[in-house]
C-alpha cells in the first residue's frame, strides 16, 4: 500500500498531536492537521487527501456541519470521512451512519492502532 495522506480535524491540539504521532509511527502516513471545520475544509480542498478524521464536537462548526460542507464541495465530497468521537451510544452511531460517514472511531484510543482501524473501515 502506498503512503496515505490523512487530515485530522480536531480543536484539541493534544489529540491532533497524538493522532499524528500514531499514524506516522505505525504506518508512516503523512498527516495534516486542522483545528476547526473551516480550516479543515480549506486544507481538504487543496491537499489531495486519502481520508479525513473528523472530531464530532467542535465549537462553532461541529463535525456534522463540517461533514455536510465537505459533501457539498466537488473537490472534497469523495474523500472518505471517519468521525472521531468521545460518544459511543448506539443512537449516535446510527445517526453518523445515516448521514453517510464512512465510519466512527471512539475516543479514547491508542493512536498506534489507528492505521489498522482506518484500513479496516475503508477497506484499503
Amino acid at each position: 500500500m502506498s503512503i496515505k495522506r490523512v487530515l485530522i480535524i480536531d480543536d484539541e491540539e493534544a489529540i491532533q498531536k497524538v493522532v499524528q504521532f500514531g499514524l506516522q509511527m505505525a504506518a508512516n502516513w503523512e498527516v495534516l492537521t486542522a483545528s476547526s471545520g473551516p480550516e479543515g475544509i480549506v486544507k481538504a480542498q487543496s491537499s489531495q487527501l486519502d481520508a479525513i478524521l473528523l472530531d464530532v464536537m467542535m465549537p462553532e462548526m461541529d463535525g456534522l456541519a463540517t461533514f455536510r460542507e465537505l459533501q457539498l464541495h466537488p473537490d472534497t465530497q469523495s474523500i472518505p470521512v471517519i468521525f472521531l468521537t468521545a460518544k459511543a451510544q448506539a443512537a449516535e452511531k446510527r445517526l453518523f451512519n445515516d448521514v453517510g460517514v464512512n465510519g466512527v472511531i471512539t475516543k479514547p484510543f491508542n493512536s498506534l492502532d489507528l492505521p489498522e482501524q482506518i484500513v479496516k473501515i475503508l477497506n484499503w
Partner: protein
Amino acid sequence: MRILLVEDDEALIKVLTRRLVEHHYAVDAVTDGVAAWEYASTYEYELLVLDVVLPKLDGISLCQRLRAAECTTPILLLTGQDTSVAKIMGLDAGADDYVVKPFDEAELIARIRALLRRSSTNPLPVLTWGELWLNPSTCEVTYADEPLTLTAKEYALLELLLRESQHVFSNEEILESLWSSEEFPVDATVRSHIRRLRHKLTAVGAPPDLIATAHGRGYYLKPLFPEVSSQGDRPLGGSDLEHRQHQQTQYLEFLNQTWVTTKEKYLQQLRELQEAISRRLDATRIASVGNACFNPQQQDAAYRIAHTLAGTLGTFGLSEAMRLCRELEQWLHPDVSLLPQHVPHLEDKVNALQRQIELTSTIQLPEQPSTTAPRLLVVDCDQAFANALKVIASQQSFYAEIFPTISNAQDWLDNCPQPPVGLILRLLDTVSTAALQFLQQFHQDYPTLPTAIISSQDDLSERLEVVRRGGTCFLPKALTPEQVMRAIAQQIQETSGQQQRTRVMLVDDDPILLRILPTQLESWGFEVLTLNDPLQFWNVLEAIHPDVLVLDVQMPQVNGLELCQVLRSDPHWQQLPVLFLSIFADARTQNQAFAVGADDYLCKPIAGIDLANRIRDRLQRVRVWTR
C-alpha cells in the same frame, strides 16, 4: 537549518549567532534592512529573525515587502516595544511571532524551534524514524535507545532529513540548508557527511540504508516498517511483537512529553468549570431556590468541557479521570435538565477530577483495551495475580481479558467480536469438572489455540485429564506471572508461525510429482516452490529462502545427497529442515541421507497428508530446539 538574522546591534548578533550555532543552525547575519532583503531574495532560509528598528529599511517594512513578494518563510520579529499596538502591527505585516527585548535566550530558541516545527511536514516536538529519535530541544539523538554522538553538521543533516521525511534532498538543497552563505562547501562535502552519518548509525545497529540514496536525485530516509496490512487479524509473530513493543514504548514517551505541556491547559479548563458551578450554586443559595439550573449556554459550555476532557484524558490513559468526566458529561447533557440530586455532587466530582489531573505526573500505558491488540482470555479468581498478568501481557502487546469465574469468561466468549489468541485457566486447587468442560469446549471451538492450565495438583492423572481435553500447556501454581506469560506467549508465537504459510522447496526431476504434490500440500496450508534442475539449486534456494527443503535422491548431473552436503556446508543453512523423498527404500541410501544431514527420509509414493504431517512435525521440532 539556515537562519537569516537581521540585527543592527553587533554585540547581540555575536551572542545570538553563538547561541543558534550551538543549536546546530547555520546563521547568516546582516545589519540593515536592505542587505536583509538582498540575502532573503538570493538564498533559501528556513527562518528569518528580524529586528524592528533597522537602518535603511525597518523590520516592519521589510516584513511587508517579503510577504508582498510571496516569501512564505517564517518570520520572527525582535523588538524593544512591548505594546499591543506594536505587536499587532508586526503580526499584521506578516510576522509569525514576536519577541520583546530583553528576552530570555532559551525562550527565543524555543520559539524558533516552534516556528520551524510549524513550517515542516513533521511538526512533532521529537522527530522519530523507527527507532531513531532526535530531540531538537536537547539536541540528543538515539537509535534503539543507544545515544549517538554527532558533529553539528551531522546533527543538522539528520534533523533536515527527519523534518521532511518524505522528501528526497538534493545536494544543493542540503548545502543551502546546512551551510551559511559565507561557507563554500562542494557536493563532495555532503557525500562525506552522509557517509560519516551512515557509519555512526550502523555502528549503533541501524540498517546501512536508513539514509537511502536516490541516484541522481539525492538522499532520503528509507521507510523502515512494513506497510500496514489489511489483514489486521493476523496474530503477531516474534519480530512483529518486538517492533510493536518498541512502538508502544515510544508512544508512551510521546504521551508523557505531550502531557507535560498540556496538563496546565486541562486544569485551566477545569477551573472554568469549577467557577461556573460555584457561581451557579451561589446564585441558587442567594435566591433560596432548590433547583440549581444552569442556563442553556452555561450548561452546554460545561458539557462541552466535560465531553472533550473525557476523550482527551482517556487517550492519555487516565481512566479514573475519564470516568469522572463521563459522569459529569451525562449529568450536564444539554438535552436534559440537571437533576437536583446531582447538584450537591457537582463540585465534588470536579474537585476529584482536578486532583486526578494534578496527581498525574507520569502517564502509564493506557488502560483501555487496545482495539487491535490480541486478546488473551484469563480465568483467575486471584485478583492480584490476574492484575500482574495483565500488566505483563500488555508489555508484550496482548490485552488480557480477565474473569474471576468460568461463567463470566463463557459470557465474554459468547459475545466477543474477535476470538482470543489463547486461554489461561488458573484454578483454585484442583481442576474442577466445570473447568475441564470449559477447556474441552474452548478446544472444540478453537482447536489451534494454545491453552495453559495452572494447577497446584501436579500428578499424571490430572495432566492426563487436561491434555485429553485439549490443554496444550500444564503449569504448576508456583510459577510467577512472568513465567506463565512467557510460556503462553511462546505457544502463541508458535501457533502464529504455523498459521503463516510455510514455504516448502521441492527439488525433483519427476514432472508428475512436481505437478501433483504442490496442489496436495497447498491444501494443507503450505506454499510450495518446485525446481526440476538441480544446477539451479543454489540460486533458487537463496532467492526464496524456504522453511523446509524436500529433496529427491536420484537426479541428473547432481544428486540430492550432494545438494544436501552443499547445503549443510554453509552455516546459514544448517538449521533448515531437509526431508528426502525417494523411490529408494533401502537402508544404505537412507543412512547415506542421514549422514549428509537429512532430518527425515520418506519413500515414494507418498500421500500429501503424510508428507504434510512429516513436514509439520519437523518444523515443530526445529522450533523447540531453537527456543
